[in-house]
C-alpha cells in the first residue's frame, strides 16, 4: 500500500517545528507501524535527509517505551501500543498524521 504521512518535525528546542509531508510506497499490511517508519527512515537516510526520531524498545507490546499520537489518538486507531499497531489497520492511499505522544508541556 502507498501512504501519505504528515509528521511533526522539530530539529531542536530552538526550532519552531512544523508538519512535513512524506510519501511511503509498497508498505506491507503485515508491517507494524514502527516498521513502516523504519522504511521511511531508511529512505530519508539514503537521500541525505534526517530520519524521524521516535522512541521504542521491545517492539513486542511489553516495555511501554513507544508512544506517538497517530491521527490525533494516542497509539492510533486500535487499542494497543504503537509497536503492536499493524498497517492493515489503514487503507491504501490514506493520509496519516503523526505527532509526538506523551504529555505536552504547557506554555
Amino acid at each position, binding site marked *: 500500500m502507498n501512504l501519505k504521512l504528515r509528521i511533526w518535525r522539530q530539529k531542536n528546542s530552538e526550532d519552531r517545528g512544523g508538519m512535513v509531508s512524506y510519501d511511503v510506497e509498497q508498505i506491507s499490511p503485515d508491517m507494524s507501524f514502527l516498521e513502516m517508519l523504519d522504511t521511511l*527512515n531508511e529512505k530519508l*537516510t539514503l537521500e541525505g535527509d534526517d530520519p524521524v526520531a521516535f522512541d521504542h524498545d*521491545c517492539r513486542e507490546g511489553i516495555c511501554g517505551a513507544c508512544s506517538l499520537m497517530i491521527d490525533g489518538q494516542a497509539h492510533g486507531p486500535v487499542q494497543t501500543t504503537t509497536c503492536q499497531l499493524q498497517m492493515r489497520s489503514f487503507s491504501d492511499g490514506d493520509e496519516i498524521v503523526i505527532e509526538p505522544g506523551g504529555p505536552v508541556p504547557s506554555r
Partner: protein
Amino acid sequence: MQGLADGYFVLPSTINDYLARGPFLPIDPAGEAVTSVETEVKSRIEKLLSIQGERTVDSFHKELGEIMWDNCGMARNEQGLRKALEQISALRDEFWRNVKVPGTGVELNQSLERANRVADFIELGYLMCLDALNRRESCGGHFREESQTPDGEAARDDDRFSYVSAWEWTGENAKPVLHEEALEFEYVHPSQRSYA
C-alpha cells in the same frame, strides 16, 4: 525469547539498586580516567559521522542478525561458525568504511546512537561465534551438532569443558584471551539430561 534476549528489562533495576547504595566518593572530571574515556568516545563519534558511506546502520544490523541466526543459533557446527567469523570480519571492515550516519554529534541523533550500538554488536557477535567455536560440546540450550548422543540428544563433555569462558578484551583487532573459570561441583553433579 523475552527472558533470553532482553537484558534491557533487567539492567535498569540493577542500576537503581547500585545507585541506592550511595553516596559515592566525588569524581574529578579532569582526572585521567574521565578524560581518557572522553577522548576515546569523542574520536569514535567523529569517526562514525565522518565516514558518510552508502549503507545505513540498520542494513548492517540486519546483515549481522542474519549471519548470527544462520550460524550461531540454538544448533551450531564448526563449519558454520568458521564461516560466520569470516563474514563478521568482512562486515566489520565494511561498517567502518561504508556506514552512513546522518546528523551531528551535538543534538539528539538516534542514528548515531544506533551506529555505536551496532559497532558493539559486531564485536559481541564475533566473540559469541569465537566462544561457540571453542566449546566443542553441547551445553545448556545450545546444541553443538558434532556433540550428540546416538539418539540425537545433546552430549556434554565435562572432562574438557567444565568451565565458564571469560574472554579478555586485549585491544582493537587483537585476539581476545580465554580465561577458563573452573566449575567445581561438590554436592550435586551434572548428569545427562533425559526425557525418557
